């Protein structure tokens, strides 16, 4: 891929916001495709109980790769990091409390 031609920046101040190059996007896609194949392979294997955990971790890595490279979280300023991680943290909170109820509801008494 030829290096991108000179941009016609008008002389505006500092919106120096680089964007991922085509090659890096292709490599990210390749990584994501590999992870998707891995998820399917794990899905089709009969590993039993831990199959769920493996496929969810693969899905988590896929979404991490996707958000870091495709959604350009890598170069975003720390505020965007805070927003993204607070969303995930709050869903974690909800899971933590609701699922604890479903695991401990039958422990009737101390």
């Amino acid at each position, binding site marked *: 891929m030829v290096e991108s031609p000179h941009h016609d920046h008008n002389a505006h101040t500092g919106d120096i916001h680089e964007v991922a190059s085509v090659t890096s996007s292709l490599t990210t896609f390749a990584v994501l495709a590999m992870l998707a194949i891995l998820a399917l392979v794990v899905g089709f294997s009969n590993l039993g109980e831990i199959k769920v955990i493996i496929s969810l971790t693969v899905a988590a890595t896929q979404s991490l790769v996707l958000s870091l490279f495709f959604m350009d979280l890598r170069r975003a300023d720390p505020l965007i990091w805070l927003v993204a991680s*607070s969303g995930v943290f709050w869903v974690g*909170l909800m899971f933590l*409390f609701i699922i*604890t109820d479903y695991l401990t*509801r039958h422990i009737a008494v101390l």
Partner: protein
Amino acid sequence: MNKTIPELDYTPQMVPYPEPTPAEDKNRVHYLNVSDTVWSWLFTLDHKRIGILYLVSVSIFFVFGGIAAALVRTNLLTPTGAILELDQYNKAFTAHGTIMLFLFLIPVIPGVLGNFFVPMMIGAKDMAFPKLNLLSWYVYMAGAMFFVWQLFVGGLDTGWTLYPPYTSQYSHTNVLYAGLGIFITGFSSILTAVNIIATVHKMRCPGMTWSRLPLFVWAMYATSLIQLLGTPVLAVTVLMLATERLFGIGIFDPTLEGDPLLFQHLFWFYSHPAVYIMILPGFGVISEVIPCFSRKNIFGYHAIAWASVGIAVVGFLVWGHHMYIAGQGFYLGMVFSTLTMLVAVPSAIKVFNWVATMYRGSIHFAPPMSFAIAFLFLFTIGGLTGLHLGVLGTDIHLHDTYFVVAHFHFVMVGGMLVAWLAGLHYYWPKMTGRMYNTFWANVAAIVVCVGFFLTFAPQFILGYNGMPRRYPHYPEEFQILNILSTAGASIQAIGFTMPAIYLLGSLVFGRPAGNNPWHATGLEWQVPSPPPPHNFEQIPIVYYPPYEYSIPNGLKHVVIHSLNGNGVHSSDITPKHQEVTSGS
């Protein structure tokens, strides 16, 4: 505690906008008279006009909710229901609940004062996304139409909590309309939240650091965090309930071994933080009003600011105290009870700091201050009675009784509504440029406080005696207290109509209020009374912390200086930074 804050030399380098002479004021262009076509109002992008749109629609829905409340209270005059049948009563209290919560309490301060004043307080020309701001009003009105529509086609009799399996299989009233209404109004509050967070982060004027933000902006920021993180869960819960009701089979369906408690978990995950969405803006207004009328710096600025954010965060971890006896596990009940005790502390800190602000102040009993004092009195009682319901042991007896009704009315009406009235009376001169009759406003504050106390104090006793919530018929021995409560309700009704009269009257008869009737600090008071369309001619620079009231000769000026130096005076001001040890 040594804090390096700029020692302020108050020699007046800069006079703010000169007080407009009445003649000059008559033909000054401000946001109200910049154009008066209906089109310019309905498609305005000016955050101030959107605030006024919200004010009008929110007050109308408050009247709707008030009528429903009047129906409920008059019906409870006699043990066998004075005026309503059983199902009519159920529809009345559900209408009162849903309209007051979703159409009044949640959108009122973020929609009216938040939209109007957050940009002005941080020195911005407008909200970050003006079109989104207008969209949030239209989405709110669309959602409100569903609520009003379901009122006229048979109402909803499930209570605002919509618990399945009653709502999904046994209720024959229009749950779907109400669910859709909740879904859409929830979307509107998400849009407001995104707007406020983006504005506070990205559009503060130079010098407006986080520790110089007015506490109202801190409270609005914390409220937007909750709205942003909580509302989507309610949206998906209402959606799941609607699918279950439409297809007759569903997730919370006990015949399928589904668990109705799962709905309660997901519902309260939003609905408890929602009560903090309602009260935090009230805290913000009180943190503005008390320092101004005690003529004294706020006590513990950082404590109050971080208490707001603390309530927003811990508020998400306590919802289980609504389900102690609903079948939730004992282990999780303990976890939620501990966290509920934790979340009670920041509110206590705030109240202590407000009272400490009044210490050695010089207190003017202007109407906003009398409402703020009523707030402190009622909210303290409301907040502390919440402890009875947060503790595992005592909630067994008190759950779903009138004790709960009294507690949340003390906090919602005694806290939020009185704070809203305080905010309305504090900012009315700035919004409309007219001054209302302060004597009648003080009378209204007293009437509201007395009427409210008479209505809901007896309900604590009713609750402890075990009278259940949502009962149109009740045992005879509770009748005396219920009559007392209804009497209080009628006094309260008078108390709420009085502001409508003298505030609207002030639009016609009120004298011009001038730039700063209360001599308050803060950027919103440095611009002429009905503010010009673009708030600030030049972007202001802020040098001082927000509440600098304790200075020698009474505050007349906060420095307005333009970026490019062609402000009213061109002299360059650099405040002298000196070590200051704050008094204990």
